[in-house]
């Protein structure tokens, strides 16, 4: 625990978003300064999952280096990673990525649940997980798993979310550490960095 804030030191941030997620992510991540220390790993559901310009779009609007998470590559600090379209993304215990083609979860591949669950297993209490706007129930179980491993959980306020289904589904099964509007989430991520080890 960090004495000053009472929050545990965080090593990585995972974010899940679906419908309305591009805007929400741009406003959260666009506010991060250059040199932000933590790795941020994002699963964003996209309707046309085979072709994606996500990394290009975000590279233009975010101060961090932006990459597609590559199979067996080591997770680097201060980098924003997006899950490759069409593949599930997992975090291994040696803090590298692995990709897989298991069945879709909640009609989704990549699935937020798989990223969250595997990252919870790898990082334990030093993980922060953020679930944003979306029209399905992906991510709810993953978020609960993050909490079970002692991690920090954050859900976008459903009243503010462009589509409330996904944050609401998470709240239905799990009481997160924070329920926040987009601006509050952005501010919290900056705070997490200050107590990063």
């Amino acid at each position, binding site marked *: 625990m960090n004495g000053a804030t009472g929050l545990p030191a965080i090593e990585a941030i995972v974010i899940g978003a679906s419908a309305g997620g591009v805007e929400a992510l741009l406003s959260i991540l666009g506010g991060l300064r250059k040199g932000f220390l933590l790795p941020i790993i994002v699963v964003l559901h996209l309707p046309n999952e085979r072709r994606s310009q996500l990394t290009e779009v975000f590279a233009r609007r975010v101060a961090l280096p932006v990459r597609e998470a590559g199979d067996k590559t080591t997770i680097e600090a201060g980098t924003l990673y997006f899950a490759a379209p069409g593949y599930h993304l997992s975090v291994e215990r040696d803090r590298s990525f692995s990709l897989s083609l298991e069945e879709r979860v909640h009609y989704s591949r990549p699935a937020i649940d*798989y990223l969250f669950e595997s990252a919870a297993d790898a990082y334990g209490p030093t993980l922060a997980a953020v679930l944003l706007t979306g029209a399905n129930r992906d991510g709810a179980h993953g978020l609960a798993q993050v909490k079970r491993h002692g991690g920090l959980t954050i859900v976008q306020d459903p009243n503010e979310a462009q589509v409330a289904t996904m944050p609401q589904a998470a709240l239905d099964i799990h009481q997160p550490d924070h329920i926040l509007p987009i601006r509050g989430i952005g501010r919290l991520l900056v705070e997490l960095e200050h107590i990063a080890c």
Partner: protein
Amino acid sequence: MERNSEIELRLLIEAIYLKYSYDFRDYSGASIKRRVNHALSQFECGTISALQEKVLHDPAAFMQLLQLLTIPVSEMFRDPSHFLAIRNEVVPLLRTYPSIKVWIAGCSTGEEVYSMAILLREEGLLERTIIYATDINPRSLEKAKQGIFSMENVRAYTANYQQAGGQRSFADYYTAAYGYAIFDKSLCENVTFADHSLATDSVFSETQLISCRNVLIYFNKNLQDRAFGLFHESLCHRGFLVLGSKETPDFSAFGNQFEPLVKQERIYRKS
């Protein structure tokens, strides 16, 4: 201190290896863990230890578990642009060989095999090609041999086939009956389906083309290196290696022994 579930998982994988010679020890952890957890509910086992006891003493239960541990998620002409690139860039060079050997490693239920056979037939090469289609899962191999796929999936494959530069009507290759598509047996005349493990077996033939798509992502770096080593050994001088859309030899121990022919489509050549 390791958690109980970690210890149990390692013991289960070790037991499977010792008893049945299936080697999952160098598979990527997150995915195998998910599948074992899924198996726990299927087998109604409270712990991985209970599952281990079951499969250790009951080969039929192990065969059932094997179905859950391997990932039979595949489609025909997956990533159509990949097959188009094989047609345009690889086939003209393959054509120069009097006889051709192709190895489909990790062929699962056969979707990649039928895709390749159809492509080679349309290019007039199938008659002088031998295809080795290998997998570790005997039930998948059996299914591949039968060549029966659900019509619902075949409709999606049809669009892939057309985008992949298919020259005919996809329906020419199968007979539809009761919601299933039964593929033309003659496509498999020169196909040998065989049990082969990239984790434990060695090279069995010289080949001109190896297709191993979306198999290596389930392996850790060690096992990926072993697989690339087998491919390198099997391929003839300047032979072709084609991979899944997120796989590359670049960061492996064999990184400088394969060069990209069409990088975007994951088509490599032994250098």
